C-alpha cells in the first residue's frame, strides 16, 4: 500500500499533475465552464504561461538545487534527513504554504508589486486554463519554490514529495470552475464538514471570491482570501471572507484584453491599451470600474461568516 501511494505521488510530481490538469481542463471546456470569455488572446496567454515557464523556471530551480546550493552549502546536504516523515511533512506544508501566502498577499497589498501578479487576475473565468497564468517575473521569483528546494537539499525530499503533491491538487481544484465544494453547503448534514474544510483549505467558494472582479459586495473579495493550500492563514491573519457563494463574474473590472505577450512579459513588453496598468506610463494600481455585481442566482444557505469582521478587510489594491 505504501509503495502504491508513493508511486502515485511520484507520478503526480512528474507527469501526473499535467495529465490531471488536462483532463479537468477538457471537462471544464466541454461543459462550457469558461463561458464566452476564452478568446484567442486569453488562450495564447494561458498556453504561454503554462508551457514557457517549464522551459525557464524548472531549469532555474534545478540549477538552484543541484548546482548553486552544493556550492554555497557543501556540507549541509541531507543534514536534516533524520527528521521523521510526519514532522518533515508538517514543516514542508507550513514553510512552503505560509511563504506562498506572504508572496501572494504582498503582491496584492504592496502597490508596486501588483502588476507582476495582475496577469493571474485578469482572466475573466476560472479553471485549469488560468490556474498557471502568471507573469514570468512572478513565476521566476516564486519564493516558496526556492525555500522548499532548500529543504529538499537539506534532506526533506521524501516528505516534500507528498506535501507538494497534496498542495498541487488543492490549489488546482480551488481554481477549477467545477464547484466541488457546493454539495457541502447544500446538504445540511454536511455543514459541520463544510465548516472545517472551508477554514482549513482553499475551496472554489473562497478562492473564486478572491478572483471576483469586484470586492466588498458580499461575495467577491480580491483584497483577501490569499491562501493557496491552506485557508487558515487567512483566518489567522484576518484576511478571510467566507460566504459559501460564488461570484457572478471574474477578472479585473477595467480589463480590456491587454496583449498576451505584454501580460506574460511585462515590464519587458508593455500593453498598448491606453490607461492599462501594464501600459507605458500607466497607473501602478487602477481604481475599479464600479459596477455592482449581483450575487449568484443560486440560493445561499449561509451568509458572510460573522467570525470574519468586515473591518478587517484591506483597503488598498
Amino acid at each position, binding site marked *: 500500500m505504501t509503495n502504491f501511494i508513493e508511486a502515485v505521488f511520484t507520478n503526480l510530481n512528474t507527469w501526473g499533475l499535467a495529465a490531471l490538469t488536462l483532463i479537468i481542463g477538457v471537462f471544464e471546456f466541454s461543459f462550457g465552464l469558461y463561458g464566452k470569455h476564452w478568446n484567442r488572446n486569453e488562450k495564447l496567454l494561458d498556453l504561454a504561461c503554462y508551457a514557457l515557464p517549464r522551459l525557464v523556471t524548472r531549469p532555474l530551480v534545478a540549477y538552484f538545487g543541484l548546482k548553486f546550493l552544493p556550492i554555497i552549502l557543501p556540507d549541509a546536504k541531507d543534514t536534516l534527513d533524520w527528521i521523521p516523515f510526519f*514532522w518533515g511533512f508538517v514543516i514542508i506544508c507550513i514553510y512552503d504554504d505560509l511563504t506562498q501566502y506572504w508572496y501572494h498577499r504582498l503582491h496584492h497589498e504592496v502597490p508596486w508589486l501588483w502588476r507582476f501578479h495582475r496577469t493571474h487576475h485578469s482572466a475573466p473565468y476560472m479553471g485549469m486554463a488560468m490556474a498557471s497564468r502568471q507573469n514570468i517575473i512572478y513565476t521566476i521569483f516564486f519564493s516558496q519554490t526556492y525555500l522548499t528546494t532548500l529543504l529538499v537539499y537539506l534532506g526533506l525530499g521524501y516528505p516534500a514529495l507528498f506535501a507538494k503533491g497534496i498542495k498541487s491538487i488543492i490549489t488546482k481544484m480551488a481554481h477549477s470552475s467545477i464547484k466541488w465544494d457546493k454539495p457541502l453547503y447544500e446538504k445540511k448534514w454536511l455543514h459541520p464538514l463544510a465548516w472545517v474544510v472551508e477554514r482549513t483549505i482553499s475551496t472554489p467558494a473562497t478562492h473564486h471570491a478572491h478572483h471576483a472582479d469586484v470586492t466588498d459586495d458580499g461575495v467577491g473579495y480580491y483584497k483577501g482570501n490569499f491562501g493557496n493550500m491552506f485557508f487558515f492563514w487567512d483566518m489567522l491573519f484576518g484576511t478571510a471572507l467566507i460566504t459559501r457563494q460564488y461570484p457572478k463574474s471574474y477578472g479585473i473590472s477595467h480589463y480590456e484584453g491587454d496583449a498576451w505577450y505584454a501580460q506574460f512579459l511585462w515590464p519587458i513588453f508593455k500593453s498598448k491599451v491606453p490607461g492599462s496598468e501594464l501600459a507605458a506610463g500607466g497607473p501602478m494600481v487602477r481604481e475599479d470600474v464600479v459596477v455592482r455585481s449581483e450575487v449568484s442566482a443560486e440560493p445561499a444557505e449561509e451568509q458572510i461568516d460573522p467570525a470574519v469582521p468586515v473591518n478587517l478587510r484591506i*483597503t488598498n489594491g
Partner: protein
Amino acid sequence: MEKEAKDRIVRNVLLSIIIYTLPILLMFLYFYITGQKPWIK
C-alpha cells in the same frame, strides 16, 4: 500604501515568524517527551 495596512503586515509577519518556529519547537518537545534522539544515527 496606507499606514493601517503597513502596520497590519508588520504584526502578521511577526506572528508568522512564531508560526515558522512552531513545528520545530513542537517536534523537539515531542522528542523530549518520548525520549527519542533520531539525530543520533
